[in-house]
């Protein structure tokens, strides 16, 4: 028999390496599951930019992940869901996977990366009218929330349809700065977006992309373990079940909100009012901004991104709640957009989401409540947060019905 010591040793090394990586994967997974309740409330970058902790959160029956943007993070208040439910008053805690400027396409990448862990699981998608009514997604915001791991997970996902991946690829190619250092991914995205036979390159690239994804997943686990080693934590969290006094909480939050909006009649947060003073310095004809507003809403690219996000959620079998925020009616009216024109947002939201058969809460009834939002972009106020908390509580306990 021909002796092949290098081949034998090489094969044995690969087997040992795969076994070691599998063992590490399980070890890391068990640690993440053990500590996710404690880690979830810390707003770690690794939670947002990795996937291991998000997957661990979805495995827990008492954690409700909320994906969103500035409406989640902007107002620092104890009424924010992750703080309000921190002690599991009604049996669950909310975990934020949110960042300033996070858009639907970023959330889609994030959730695609979590993969089958979200099958049958409740998840909240928080949105505001702002990206649908006030301009296109900034390249800076996209880049500031872009992670290579999420992009690879989405594009090489075996759980998503080619149509969804192609739509995502097309959009991702519109942000070339994020792909500059990654020609392999850029080439794959281009191939995915072309008809056959160019698309064949996607299939050729797939094993290599998947291999790269596996490496990044392991790095994600390693980053979590490194954090746990450098920040000793107690896995147990405080749980204090209690009946929530919603009317009392709402009254307290409302009172508190009023104290932060003393310098204007529109309920705008005092610190933000200076942004509007100049805009409102000269009289604005009512309805003068209607046609532009409607044009912006109808043509917003964010709707396409929302469709990609809803497609990802449907294909992964999640049970999402699309939690919008109301138009800040009186402030928009003062800026020349009638309430009728503002309603275009709600109509379009319903039209876009209806085919996906998802729960949508838009709080339209609170549009004229000047204390629900702190500004034109509908960033949630202290009072608004109490309404949001109540909705989250109802959603978690199955008290919101499918439309």
């Amino acid at each position, binding site marked *: 028999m021909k002796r092949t010591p290098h081949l034998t040793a090489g094969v044995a090394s690969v087997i040992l390496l795969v076994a070691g990586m599998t063992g590490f994967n399980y070890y890391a997974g068990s640690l993440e599951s053990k500590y996710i309740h404690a880690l979830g409330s810390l707003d770690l970058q690794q939670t947002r930019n990795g996937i291991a902790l998000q997957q661990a959160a979805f495995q827990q029956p008492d954690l409700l992940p909320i994906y969103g943007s500035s409406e989640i993070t902007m107002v620092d208040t104890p009424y924010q869901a992750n703080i309000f439910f921190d002690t599991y008053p009604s049996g669950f805690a909310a975990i934020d996977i949110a960042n300033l400027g996070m858009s639907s396409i970023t959330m889609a990448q994030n959730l695609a990366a979590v993969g089958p862990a979200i099958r049958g699981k409740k998840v909240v998608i928080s949105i505001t009218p702002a990206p649908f009514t006030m301009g296109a997604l900034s390249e800076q915001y996209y880049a500031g929330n872009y992670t290579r791991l999420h992009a690879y997970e989405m594009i090489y996902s075996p759980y998503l349809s080619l149509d969804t991946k192609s739509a995502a690829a097309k959009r991702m190619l519109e942000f070339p700065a994020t792909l500059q250092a990654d020609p392999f991914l850029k080439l794959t995205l281009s191939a995915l977006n072309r008809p056959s036979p160019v698309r064949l390159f996607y299939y050729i690239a797939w094993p290599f992309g998947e291999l790269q994804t596996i490496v990044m997943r392991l*790095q994600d686990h390693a980053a979590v373990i490194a954090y746990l080693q450098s920040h000793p934590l107690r896995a147990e969290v405080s749980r204090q079940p209690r009946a929530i006094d919603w009317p009392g909480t709402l009254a307290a939050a409302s009172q508190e909100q009023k104290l932060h909006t003393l310098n204007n009649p529109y309920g705008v947060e005092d610190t933000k009012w200076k942004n509007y003073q100049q805009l409102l310095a000269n009289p604005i004809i009512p309805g003068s901004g209607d046609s532009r507003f409607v044009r912006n809403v109808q043509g917003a690219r964010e709707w396409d991104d929302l469709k990609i996000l809803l497609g990802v959620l449907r294909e992964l079998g999640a049970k999402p709640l699309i939690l919008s925020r109301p138009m800040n009616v009186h402030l928009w009216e003062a800026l020349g957009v009638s309430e009728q024109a503002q309603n275009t947002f709600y109509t379009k939201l319903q039209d876009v989401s209806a085919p996906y058969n998802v729960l949508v809460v838009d709080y339209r009834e609170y549009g004229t409540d000047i204390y629900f939002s702190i500004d034109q972009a509908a960033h949630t106020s202290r009072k608004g947060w109490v309404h949001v908390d109540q909705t989250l509580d109802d959603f978690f306990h199955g008290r919101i019905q499918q439309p």
Partner: protein
Amino acid sequence: MWIKRLTTFFTDAYNNPSTKTILLVLYYLAIIAGLIAMYGKGDFSTAKFVYQGF
């Protein structure tokens, strides 16, 4: 003297097929471990930006 004995030990070990394979496996694993130590740390940071609202 001890150098000679050590050299003999390794030469004998390397001439034994089983020991040679084990040594090679250890050698390859050491290389892999080195590569992991050098390149194993992932970068999960995102580009810095100034949030200016909408």
